[in-house]
């Protein structure tokens, strides 16, 4: 069993990191500029964010490869550089000294019919290339995340399992709260979608982005009640608010940490943050997860 798989099924929840893109923006990454460009050109900034999360107590950091699907890199002016980005991103994450490094696989940015015209085979090939490069660079696991179409998540998962045999693959979809429950924007329902991904070989399944921690707590309850597969949950820090031209998120670290501790107490195996969360959120959560017996978990 890989070290990360053991940690996923251990007595304590695995603490992931928080937002990366929002942290890089705070360090001057321009609007619409690809973080992957910073991986190649300003690696010290990316490394500093990883280090801050490790210092905050994260057990695992996720590589700055959210937008490194070859199709997405091409649109960002980085065509053909997925392998190079993957190698550099893993080295930056590894240098931060985290116990685990998780290779991040974000959406391709293209849409399958009927919403778009993407070809499933081409999308899969892109994920395969990126997953192979991340695995070759020595990641402990891969995380397919922020997927709003379970079909893309499933093909990314299959591609990762093919390209990186033996490397555990976590899969997170992005859900919205709709009148009839939690669904992706494409209409994929919570439990059925996660069950399908678990059956397809995901080491853990769950949700990240869009939802705030209070909604994510409700989602986690529903998922835990239905699924025995390890779960991974990474909410946003509330909703983004723009003040005087600067983006900030609505939630304070302690409120976030309280909800996430409750999520962990449900038996959710991996927790962390998404957009708007920073090392303060992870540090607040670390303090709660270390609470003595009688505290959460």
């Amino acid at each position, binding site marked *: 069993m890989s070290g990360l798989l053991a940690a996923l099924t251990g007595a304590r929840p695995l603490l992931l990191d928080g937002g990366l893109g929002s942290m890089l923006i705070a360090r001057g990454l321009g*609007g*619409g500029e690809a973080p992957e460009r910073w991986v190649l050109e300003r690696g010290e900034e990316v490394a500093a964010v990883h280090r801050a999360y490790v210092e905050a107590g994260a057990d695992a950091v996720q590589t700055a490869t959210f937008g490194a699907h070859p199709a997405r890199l091409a649109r960002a002016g980085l065509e053909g550089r997925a392998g190079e980005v993957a190698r550099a991103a893993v080295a930056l994450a590894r240098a931060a000294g985290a116990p685990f490094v998780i290779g991040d696989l974000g959406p391709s940015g293209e849409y399958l019919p*009927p*919403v*778009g015209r993407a070809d499933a085979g081409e999308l899969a090939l892109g994920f395969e290339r990126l997953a192979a490069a991340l695995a070759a660079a020595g990641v402990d696991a891969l995380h397919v995340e922020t997927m709003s179409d379970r079909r893309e998540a499933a093909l990314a998962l299959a591609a990762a399992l093919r390209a990186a045999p033996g490397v555990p693959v976590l899969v997170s979809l992005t859900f919205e709260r709709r009148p*009839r429950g939690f669904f992706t924007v494409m*209409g994929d329902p919570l439990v059925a979608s996660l069950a399908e991904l678990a059956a397809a070989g995901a080491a853990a399944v769950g949700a990240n982005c869009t939802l705030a921690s209070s909604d994510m707590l409700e989602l986690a309850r529903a998922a835990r009640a239905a699924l025995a597969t390890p779960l991974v949950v990474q909410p946003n820090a509330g909703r*983004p608010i723009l003040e005087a031209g600067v983006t900030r998120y609505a939630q304070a670290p302690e409120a976030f940490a309280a909800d996430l501790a409750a999520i962990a107490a449900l038996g959710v195996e991996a927790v962390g943050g998404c957009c708007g969360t920073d090392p303060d959120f992870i540090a607040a959560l670390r303090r709660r997860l270390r609470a003595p017996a009688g505290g959460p978990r």
Partner: protein
Amino acid sequence: MDEVRYEAMRAAVRDGDAAAAAALAASVVASGEDAVAAVERGFAAGIRDVGVLWEQGEYFLPELVQGAEAMKAAMAALAPALARGGAAGAARGRVVIGTVAGDLHDIGKSLVATLLAAHGFEVFDLGSDVPVEAFVAKARATGARIVAASALLTTTMTVQRDLVRAIAAAGFEPPVRVLVGGAPTSEAWAAEIGAGYAENALRAVAAAEALLG
């Protein structure tokens, strides 16, 4: 036309069947029937159904996209008949639309463009990653009364403010109004920068109509 035909038109849009919608529209044109009634009592009723089903949580993005495409197909087939009847798009007004500079998100903006066109606006879609100057130049070239700008990132929504300022600085007469939307935007944000606001693609049509007063 009888109720059964209107209901078929409505169902074609509601079910996202573009081929059926186009065929029904073509039959209206071929028989010289009332194209405006076909829109109002048939196809547009269908797109309103799509909106209701979405609000109820029954429909999701794929159904919205397919419904809008069916509506667009019907409107394209009806265009010659509508033009003869004096109900041409220009009467509803021209709209320049795009996703702002630095932002590649295309779906919501394209859905708004399709729905505006389906409701009789003449739409000039500049795509995504559109610089402020390109919006202004296109508004000038087309005589559009509305510039609609989508932003899906908190980092790019500030460009919407730049756009409002640039449109104001260009001194259009009659004035050009800016309509904004996208996940991170809000009524409060739109009010702050002096733009109209649409919470989602289905509301954008009413918002555009309101801006034209």
